């Protein structure tokens, strides 16, 4: 029991945010008389917020290294969109090749910004503020102020669905099959982890609690799957988000580079003296952030079906807010990818729910701002206790 309390205490912020998310969802479900969780709206919610979810994962790593943020991601999203538009529409380059090219350009941008931040040690805030201006400017130059419409084939990435295996059925079969497989894999991994820990002679949470946890997660997976299945199935962006979430959770929690990022944010001097090459870590984190921005740029331009010079405005702030709502510390070393995802969903549900209710965007912003402040205030106060 002590152990459980310990785990709970250590993760209180994340549980609190998860509970808050569930609470907000129930609240809006009631207020919108059931529209929020309607199949079509769930799908919408995912597609609308894909860019924040993706950017927040990369931003988490930046913040973890010591409260560094990246202000250039919004402009980068627009810049990548502009390049995609130019490559595909103006230059008639094959879509796959064009995507590959913009990802490489993302790497190059990351190397550029990472170099100034990690090796010259100019504060990330300043380097990325410069990046924000530079890439917005370049976007406008490339597009010459015009919006380019993107072809349908490309737009599928942002707005398409994975085709079903059997056509004609009312529910999307593939979605249900995938959900079943994911549930089985999840249960299998949890059981394996448990027996592994037992093998080493460690304490494990008691079996009743363990079963409750398994049931809750599986029910959540199946509910979401059912909802998606009764509309059009699995959105392609969901696959992208899912894959990124898996990769980044794994890297941050289970690998040496992940541990090094946390250590650097916790105390850079100590990390350095413990043999961690902190400059390299910081550099790679910013290269990664630029690549993530490129992915978000692809997904977002596909969703709006065009490359626009005005795309991506304030995206950096949404991503940063998602991380902080999700429990990241402004000084670094604390925060999780899952937390950032929850944070992004909290904001997404708020946006979506208020839109359905017809709340104006002026009030939406005010409320989101207050939510951010409250979430962080809760964090600070709960630590003081």
């Amino acid at each position: 029991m002590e152990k459980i309390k310990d785990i709970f205490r250590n993760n209180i912020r994340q549980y609190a945010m998860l509970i808050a998310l569930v609470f907000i969802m129930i609240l809006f479900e009631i207020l919108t008389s059931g529209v929020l969780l309607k199949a079509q709206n769930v799908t919408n919610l995912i597609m609308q917020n894909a860019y924040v979810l993706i950017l927040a994962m990369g931003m988490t790593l930046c913040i973890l290294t010591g409260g560094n943020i990246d202000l250039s991601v919004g402009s980068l999203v627009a810049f990548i969109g502009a390049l995609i538009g130019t490559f595909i529409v103006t230059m008639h380059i094959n879509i796959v090749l064009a995507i590959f090219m913009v990802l490489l350009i993302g790497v190059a941008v990351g190397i550029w910004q990472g170099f100034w931040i990690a090796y010259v040690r100019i504060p990330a805030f300043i380097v990325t503020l410069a990046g924000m201006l530079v890439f917005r400017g370049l976007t406008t130059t490339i597009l010459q102020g015009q919006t380019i419409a993107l072809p349908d084939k490309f737009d599928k990435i942002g707005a398409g669905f994975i085709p079903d295996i059997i056509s004609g059925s009312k529910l999307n079969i593939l979605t249900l099959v995938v959900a079943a497989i994911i549930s089985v894999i999840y249960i299998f991994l949890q059981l394996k982890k448990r027996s592994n820990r037992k093998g080493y002679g460690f304490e494990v949470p008691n079996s009743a609690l363990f079963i409750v946890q398994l049931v809750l997660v599986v029910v959540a997976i199946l509910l979401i799957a059912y909802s998606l299945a009764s509309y059009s199935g699995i959105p392609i962006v969901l696959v992208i988000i899912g894959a990124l979430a898996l990769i980044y959770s794994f890297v941050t929690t289970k690998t040496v580079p992940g541990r090094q990022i946390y250590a650097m944010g916790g105390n850079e001097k100590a990390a350095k003296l413990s043999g961690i090459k902190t400059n390299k870590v910081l550099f790679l984190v910013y290269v990664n952030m630029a690549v993530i921005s490129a992915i978000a740029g692809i997904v977002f331009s596909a969703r709006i079906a065009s490359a626009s010079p005005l795309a991506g405005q304030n995206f950096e702030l949404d991503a940063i807010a998602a991380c902080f709502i999700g429990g990241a510390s402004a000084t670094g070393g604390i925060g999780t990818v899952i937390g950032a995802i929850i944070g992004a969903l909290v904001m997404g549900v708020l946006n979506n729910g208020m839109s359905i209710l017809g709340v104006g965007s002026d009030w939406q912003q005010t409320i989101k701002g207050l939510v951010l402040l409250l979430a962080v205030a809760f964090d600070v106060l709960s630590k003081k206790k």
Partner: protein
Amino acid sequence: MKERPNLLIKDISVGKQQLVEIAKALAKEVKLLILDEPTAALNEEESNNLLNLLLELKKDGITSILISHKLSEVSRVADTITIIRDGATIETLTKGIDDIGEDRIIKGMVGRELVDRFPKRTPKIGDISFEVKDWNVYDPLVDGRKLIKNVSMNIRRGEVVGISGLMGAGRTEFAMSVFGRSYGKHITGTIIKDGKEVTLHNAKQAIDNGIAYVTEDRKSAGLILIDDIKWNTSLSSLDKISKNQVINDNKEIYAVEEYRKKLNIKSSSILQKVGNLSGGNQQKVVLSKWIMSEPDILILDEPTRGIDVGAKYEIYTIINQLADQGKSIIFISSELPEILGMCDRIYVMNEGRIVGELNRDEASQENIMKCIMKSNKEAV
């Protein structure tokens, strides 16, 4: 204090930072002055000056509360001494009525009489394992200022070698520059480990070559206070508990738990944040971290600073055990009794030079000070 007044505080040594702190406190007109380990980072002479200052202040009617682990200071200046252990007041001794000698205070602190302040060890000294030759280091901030001048030293397997010297003698700068050039610039000299010359460009290479460095300031450079014991302990040994960069959780817990038990780290579990541990237990976490990296050479920079007598004894015991396992220990300390009690051989450092080398039987406080004085005279 001999420093340029416009130098930033973060760029001067801990000892000098302490002096600035005290000057700041004295600048306000105080009635009651509370000093928490004011001399922890000071050398004997500076400490003496500070204590005399307290006696002066007493004459002016200023009350001082001195919190200190250095018992000699307490018995020297205090009128009453209150001993606190595990968060409770044990007893209050008054000068003139009770015995306020060091042994009496220790008895109150540990709850029993500590016969020996330093655990006994029969040294089993082997071949030379580590050598530094003609080591020169320049100040990274002030151009052209040489901090370490032609230092050469060696250490054998199973040997505890002390580096003694006054604050600012360059001991920490020397140790850190040897440890993968973590300090200073234009570093020249050779490092020979087990008969082979090695080049260490960063801390990682130093660790891979079996060298460990326990920092002088554990809070700012040794530990990640917001992380737990587990993460702190395994930080410099991540390669050992991972395969293809993926950490084996169970292996990690297993290893860290073992060190927690072995070093008797008082904590609720390995998931406790190190920021919430006492100084002595924090230091044990730092030691676990470096023992886990399985070094051959351990450089300990002020390993017992600011920790209580009981924990000190435990740390001395750990050091002795490591030496018995054939590891070479370089022991840097400002406390002469500690250097004398623990080391098989002592290098005396002053103004960036080695100014004396003393064996255990010829080492004494007087001889160490003599080496320093002699070199000062030569310099003039």
